[in-house]
């Protein structure tokens, strides 16, 4: 297909470099420098998509980031599929493949358009009102159907093969936006000696200047033609050693303390990105000062049928002509509410497009400089007129024009005017997104009809059109001033006298809200939000139904909630609601601007943190041994822990049963290295421990261990673990695996802020020790041959003792402790010796049938003994007494964390949930952890649960299931039959002691 809508000359495209591309099933040709949108328009393609809700044919509305309609999917291969890209921002490359969205079977014949016929029945809030009943159907029927019918592009189904980079940067002045104001600001700041970063979302610096005509341009800056000024300024900045220029870089978020997120697109514009080249780079820039020069966005006009393909913003049509050399049509009608848009009609006229009419909707007589120029050029101007409708199926073919009477209402005969291009301009809306994100306050400027930056919350300035300074000369001057002032605030001496610069002029332009209709704005389908298909009628309906706050109207009608976040629609929506409620604009409020400014890929945020780098992995010194021996691992926090060691053909159940029997019958070997370990050292170590833990530490002799319980000051169990006193002034404190960091932080908090007078030092030694638990009746015989300088007989080393000695020739801290109820030792050796010592113990244990076991078996063995796991059998509302541990509390101590709270009356209630054991009537039935316990079977009415199952396992040693539970008044219910309520019926259980195995503890002391 030949490019028949390209102007003979002009534009910033490279006509010497044609590029072939494909849109849906058709092949086209464009030029280097085109966007997908400009190249499609040059090929006469105006129909680009179907609308979200009504499946109406839609084309291109804008030329930049604000585009709500022309969303496409760009596909490079199966994994490189990017949906919902604005065709106006997709740079053309050789071989580009793009697809339209939200249509089936094709763009021209979209069966979903039937919903457009039903549109009278799909008003605002339709989903909320209609799909209420039956309740289950929402999840099963309505939502999946609605999601399939409405919806934009589809996400790729393969993993993203691209790489993404990230970078931190600092500067004196960050300038966002490289239009006239931004270029001037960057140039002024750089000339003063500031370190400057200038970023712009476009591939070329220049902003709105890129849309000026490259031939016959009247635009002048500081006495020279605008394009020459732009080229010179860019050249100077590029050569400046303290300036970083970032193109294709969107400042998407403004975060506290002048941190801005920038997303730089590195390879999306390339036909063949180098392999390994990052696709995007996310910058986090901490700037001393920020200058926002983000420009303004043209507002569409709200009239019925304003969404047909071929209806564009006036400035966009001018951009397509001047920048891309594209004729967006051949017979144009301009509908405008401001003088500036006349420039578009003049430029189009000069390019040979027939301007059929300029419909000026204002009440004045259009006698400004530009309207006069249009008159002189012979363009027909219809003052005090409006458009009341359009026609055309896949592209606009005519508009209906009517004059406005003295009260501003359309009256008299309507005229039909044939055309294939409608340009509209409601005026300019300053882009205050980033300023608002920075928590700066916006103020409504009545004379300008715009929200403008007012009180700043960060060191930031706005310059140019984003603060209502629209004219070129004034914007450049405003940018210079802002650049100098920013440099000065950043601590740089500037030459110019900023205060003497004249204040910039601002100019009132445009209208807000819906254009008047003969029978009011509730008639006709006049779109406000193109992307979410919200009309002026929907907004009026919301107001009529009682919505008063714009935040509520937004959520009810979904206006401004699409991926464009209402860049073209928010102010019109606000004005319509304000008019309906008869309130002033600021009284209706403004919706919140949130990052990102435009959608940013997940890859950009993930950066390098994916795959193996997504999260750190912690492994124990014996990890590789476990892996070699077939361990199945589980994640515990960041740790990888061996869960069980299946032998050939074993499932978890069989492996765990075998491991349990081995530990109880002979000897088990367990890697306890993940346990938190804190060395508490100093003259006041015992005092500190006395204040932190509930136990009485003063009486603990050197060489002895004790089971410690740590409460929070609210009296609930926070952590537990064995504590060994290794010297008068030294405690080796162990914590739960997950609690290690929190316990150290809690200890540090009290040490630093409550008791800074104590002479005590805390050191995390978790990763310094490899911990090898040897458990079972043969444990002593397994270890003895390996030890030097220690007697571990029952008499010399009783349960809960600790000693230093050597094992396999290396230093060891040996603790006689047990989390299994069997005779047990925990061998602590410096981490690097762990694998060798582990192997030696394993070898020594061969003649005792030693078996390595994992966390699953550890859980079963401890549950058989009724030992709790903090966080599984406790949940932050369990006291030491609830858990049956009041024996550990040093009640005569004057104070410890949580002691005062224990006197709360609620803690003495006999009806508290207490730890008990549960035995199912059917011994092979294993309860579900978390299941609820009730007291009566076959309840007629719902009954409050009186407890819940916290741990539940099959015990191979006992040949039956066991469970731990927290049960109201549990200890007073021993022997009672209760019921565990499950979806398929109650399971009868008997309340029992939580100690199921060896209640006398004789094995422990063996």
């Amino acid at each position, binding site marked *: 297909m030949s490019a028949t809508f390209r102007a003979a000359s002009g534009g910033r495209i490279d006509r010497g470099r044609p590029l072939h591309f494909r849109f849906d099933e058709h092949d086209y040709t464009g030029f280097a420098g085109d966007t997908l949108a400009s190249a499609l328009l040059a090929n006469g393609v105006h129909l680009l998509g179907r609308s979200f809700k009504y499946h109406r044919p839609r084309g291109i509305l804008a030329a930049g980031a604000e585009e709500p309609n022309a969303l496409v999917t760009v596909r490079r291969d199966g994994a490189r599929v990017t949906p919902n890209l604005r065709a106006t921002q997709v740079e053309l490359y050789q071989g580009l493949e793009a697809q339209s969205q939200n249509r089936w079977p094709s763009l021209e014949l979209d069966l979903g358009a039937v919903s457009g016929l039903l549109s009278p029945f799909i008003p605002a809030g339709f989903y909320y009102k209609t799909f209420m009943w039956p309740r289950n159907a929402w999840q099963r029927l309505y939502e999946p159907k609605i999601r399939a019918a409405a919806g934009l592009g589809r996400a790729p189904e393969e993993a993203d093969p691209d790489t993404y980079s990230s970078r931190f940067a600092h500067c004196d002045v960050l300038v966002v936006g490289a239009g006239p104001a931004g270029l001037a600001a960057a140039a002024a700041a750089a000339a003063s000696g500031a370190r400057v970063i200038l970023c712009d979302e476009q591939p070329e610096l220049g902003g709105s200047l890129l849309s000026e005509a490259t031939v016959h341009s009247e635009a002048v800056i500081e006495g020279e033609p605008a394009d020459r000024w732009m080229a010179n300024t860019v050249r100077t900045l590029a050569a400046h050693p303290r300036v970083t220029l970032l193109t294709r870089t969107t400042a998407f978020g403004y975060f506290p303390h002048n941190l801005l997120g920038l997303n730089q697109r590195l390879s999306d514009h390339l036909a063949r990105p180098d392999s390994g080249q990052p696709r995007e780079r996310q910058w986090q820039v901490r700037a001393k000062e920020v200058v926002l020069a983000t420009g303004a966005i043209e507002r569409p006009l709200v009239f019925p049928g304003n969404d047909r393909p071929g209806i564009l913003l006036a400035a966009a049509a001018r951009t397509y002509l001047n920048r891309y050399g594209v004729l967006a049509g051949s017979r144009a009608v301009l509908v405008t509410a401001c003088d500036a848009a006349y420039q578009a009609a003049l430029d189009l006229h000069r390019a040979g497009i027939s301007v059929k009419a300029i419909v000026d909707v204002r009440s004045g007589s259009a006698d400004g400089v530009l309207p006069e120029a249009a008159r002189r050029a012979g363009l027909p101007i219809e003052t005090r007129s409006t458009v009341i409708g359009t026609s055309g199926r896949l592209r606009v073919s005519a508009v209906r024009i009517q004059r406005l009477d003295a009260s501003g209402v359309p009256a008299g005969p309507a005229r039909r005017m044939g055309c294939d291009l409608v340009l509209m301009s409601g005026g300019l809306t300053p882009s205050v997104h980033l300023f608002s994100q920075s928590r700066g306050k916006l103020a409504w400027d009545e004379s300008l009809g715009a929200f403008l930056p007012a009180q700043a919350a960060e060191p930031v300035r706005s310059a140019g059109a984003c603060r209502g300074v629209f004219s070129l000369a004034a914007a450049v001057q405003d940018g210079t001033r802002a650049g100098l002032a920013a440099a000065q605030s950043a601590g740089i001496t500037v030459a110019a006298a900023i205060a003497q610069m004249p204040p910039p002029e601002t100019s009132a332009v445009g209208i807000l809200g819906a254009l008047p209709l003969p029978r009011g704005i509730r008639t006709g389908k006049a779109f406000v939000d193109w992307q979410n298909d919200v009309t002026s009628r929907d907004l009026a309906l919301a107001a009529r139904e009682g919505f008063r706050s714009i935040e509520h109207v937004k959520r009810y009608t979904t206006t401004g909630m699409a991926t464009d976040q209402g860049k073209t629609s928010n102010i019109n929506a606000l004005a319509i609601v304000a008019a309906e409620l008869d309130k002033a604009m600021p009284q209706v409020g403004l919706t919140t601007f949130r990052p990102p400014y435009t959608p940013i890929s997940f890859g950009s945020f993930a950066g390098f943190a994916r795959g193996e780098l997504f999260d750190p992995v912690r492994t124990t010194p014996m990890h590789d041994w476990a892996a070699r021996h077939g361990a199945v691992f589980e994640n515990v926090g960041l740790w990888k822990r061996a869960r069980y060691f299946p032998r050939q053909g074993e499932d978890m159940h069989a492996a765990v049963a075998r491991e349990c029997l081995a530990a109880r019958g002979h000897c088990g070997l367990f890697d306890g290295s993940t346990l938190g370990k804190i060395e508490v050292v100093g003259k006041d170590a015992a005092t500190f421990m006395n204040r932190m833990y509930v136990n009485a530490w003063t009486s603990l002799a050197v060489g002895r261990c004790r089971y410690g319980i740590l409460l929070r000051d*609210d009296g609930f169990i926070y952590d537990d673990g064995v504590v060994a006193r290794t010297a008068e002034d030294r405690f080796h404190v162990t914590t739960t695996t997950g609690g290690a960091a929190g316990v150290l932080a809690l200890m540090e908090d009290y040490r630093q802020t409550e008791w800074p007078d104590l002479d005590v030092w805390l050191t995390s030694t978790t990763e310094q020790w490899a911990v090898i638990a040897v458990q079972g009746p043969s444990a002593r015989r397994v270890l003895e041959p390996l030890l030097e300088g220690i007697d571990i007989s029952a008499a010399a080393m009783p349960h809960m003792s600790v000693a230093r000695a050597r094992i396999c020739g290396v230093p060891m801290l040996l603790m006689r402790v047990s989390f299994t109820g069997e005779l047990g030792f925990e061998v602590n050796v410096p981490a690097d010796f762990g694998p060798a010592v582990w192997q030696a113990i394993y070898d020594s244990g061969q003649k005792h049938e030693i078996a390595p076991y994992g966390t699953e078996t550890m859980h079963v063995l401890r549950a058989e003994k009724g030992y709790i796991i903090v966080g599984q059998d406790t949940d932050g509302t369990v006291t030491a007494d609830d858990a049956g541990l009041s024996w550990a509390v040093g009640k005569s101590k004057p104070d410890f964390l949580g002691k005062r709270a224990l006197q709360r009356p609620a803690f003495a209630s006999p009806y508290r949930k207490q730890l008990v054991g549960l035995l199912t009537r059917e011994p092979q039935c294993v309860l579900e952890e978390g299941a609820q316990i009730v007291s009566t079977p076959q309840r007629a009415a719902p009954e409050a649960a009186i407890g819940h199952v916290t741990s539940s396992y099959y015990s191979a040693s006992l040949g039956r299931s066991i469970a731990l539970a927290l049960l109201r008044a549990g200890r007073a219910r021993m022997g009672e039959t209760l019921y565990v309520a499950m979806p398929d019926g109650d399971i009868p259980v008997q309340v029992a002691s939580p100690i199921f195995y060896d209640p006398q503890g004789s094995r422990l002391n063996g």
Partner: protein
Amino acid sequence: MLLIDCPYCGARPELEFVYGGQAHVARPRNPAECSDEQWADFLYWRDNSRGVHAERWRHTHGCGQFFNALRDTTNDHFLATYRVGEAAPALERVARPRT
């Protein structure tokens, strides 16, 4: 991301810190003498200031020290940071950042 001036290390990004709740809430010296109400006050009741708030931070991934800060909750500006044990600086003496 906030930029926090650790009184021991200097300005560092928020990532290195952990928030520690309201500052200057001392644990009673003799908890046993507290009424239930006083103890509940200590445990649970905190200010929810709009404006200047004295709060604790810990430079967990740095020097590990707790310190105190005055922060304006309306705009997240830190007005001062100071060491544990020091009194909060008088606000008149705190330089207000330019807005």
